């Protein structure tokens, strides 16, 4: 069906249970079309990060099927996972930077795993780092950055290899209003170029006056 083809992310009746008494997601079904920009919101502990983690296979669903960019996540073998992750840029809630490595190395990582040439890596890294306002800190170690600076490095790393899908988990939690607006502009721009974006946040201001679809999780269930 043509229809399925245009859904780049599709969850069907997905549940995730970490422990017996802990049901993080309960029968979530969701379709995200290619090129869509959706917001994922909900209170702390409602399952936003869990949902994203399922999409790049950091966790496996307890039940249900997940399709991302034509791949069936539930049947993915460990050696196939890297292929999925190269097509999905993730901004982690806890950044997950290499603390002892420089900003450049951290951002370059996404390109190096693809086997890009050094000259190309350099060019693209500089470009994106300038974009998030950290070009002056290119050679500083990640651990020596402020919280907001780290967050921007995480954003740069997730988008530098121009993945078709971006999963952003609370990417502006450590940023002031101006920086937040810059990040939102960057996301809009990427989206305009065709990137599908799933943006988890509880900052309601970000989607208050938007025409975007807003998905709300509560206690692991989709509401409205």
């Amino acid at each position, binding site marked *: 069906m043509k229809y399925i083809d245009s859904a780049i992310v599709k969850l069907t009746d997905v549940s995730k249970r970490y422990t017996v008494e802990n049901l993080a997601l309960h029968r979530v079904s969701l379709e995200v079309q290619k090129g869509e920009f959706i917001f994922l919101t909900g209170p702390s502990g409602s399952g936003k990060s869990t949902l994203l983690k399922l999409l790049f296979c*950091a966790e*496996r669903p307890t039940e249900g099927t997940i399709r991302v960019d034509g791949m069936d996540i539930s049947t993915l073998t*460990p050696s196939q996972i*890297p292929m999925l*992750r190269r097509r999905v840029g993730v901004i982690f809630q806890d950044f997950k930077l290499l603390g002892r490595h420089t900003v450049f190395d951290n951002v370059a990582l996404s390109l190096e795993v693809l086997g890009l040439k050094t000259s190309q890596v350099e060019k693209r890294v500089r470009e994106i780092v300038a974009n998030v306002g950290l070009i002056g800190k290119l050679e500083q170690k990640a651990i020596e950055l402020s919280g907001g600076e780290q967050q921007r490095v995480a954003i740069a790393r997730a988008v530098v290899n121009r993945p078709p899908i971006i999963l952003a988990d609370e990417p502006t939690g450590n940023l002031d209003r101006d920086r937040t607006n810059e990040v939102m502009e960057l996301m809009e721009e990427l989206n305009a170029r065709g990137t599908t974006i799933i943006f988890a946040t509880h900052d309601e201001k970000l989607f208050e006056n938007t025409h975007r679809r807003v998905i709300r999780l509560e206690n692991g269930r989709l509401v409205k």
Partner: protein
Amino acid sequence: MIAGIIYKRALSDIRQNLTNQAMTILVVALSMLLLLFFALFSFNLRHFVEELGSKLGIVVYLKKEVPQESIPALYKRISELKGIESVNYTSSEDAFRKLKKYLADEQQVLEGVDANFLPPSFEIQIDRAVFNIERIREVAAELSTWKEVSKVQYGQEWIDRLEVFSGLTQRALVGAGLLLLITTAFVVANTIKLTTYARQDELEILRLVGATNMFITGPFLLEAFFQGLAGSLLATGIVYATTQYLQSLLSQHPLFKEVELVFLPLSYTAAIIGGSIIVCITGTAISMRRFLKL
């Protein structure tokens, strides 16, 4: 392309974790050093015992009535036995001279005694290359059936001792060697495991940004190869130098001139270097596997 990147990453990794690298190489070197000294010791012990054993000859006493003319033929027959290195004939007169020498100052007792009263004999040396205790027994048994022979003597007691000794040392050495091997493998693997532990965040992050297992493990395995090689080469060098030094000490003493300290044969050394590399690579691969699941 990917090989180039792995190589580049390994290099930058080594540069950034220089202390840890040096530590691991030192641990490998020290472990290998022990293994090598141990191998050297046991190798030299075996060499020494065999040397000793191969010097234990067989003495064949002939009957007095065996005519002088048949000696060359007998000599030839003995020489043609399998695994004989040398045969020496001692005539009655030679034997008498030896006894005289033993009695030294008191040789006057032998005055007037017939110089032929001692029987003639052959002294046989078993070929070193094929030396073993069983062979001595066989040759002795065979010889004692010959009609010209009155008595066959060989270091019965010595051979028995030697047998028990080599049995015991073999057991002890195999045991100790295995223990040492396990220790080495264990210590090296544990060191590598702890090193990867300290970097597990890094491994996790690499996985998360889409690095293939090859990309992640490649540099680590290359480093492990290098660690194993550098460590064991260092150890081999030290052991070699020590052997040379000890040999030069020994050869200065006239009494120890004949004692030969041999360095390990090339095959042993190669096995130890190869083993060191394998242990390092295997240890690394096993320690890393756990991080590559999700």
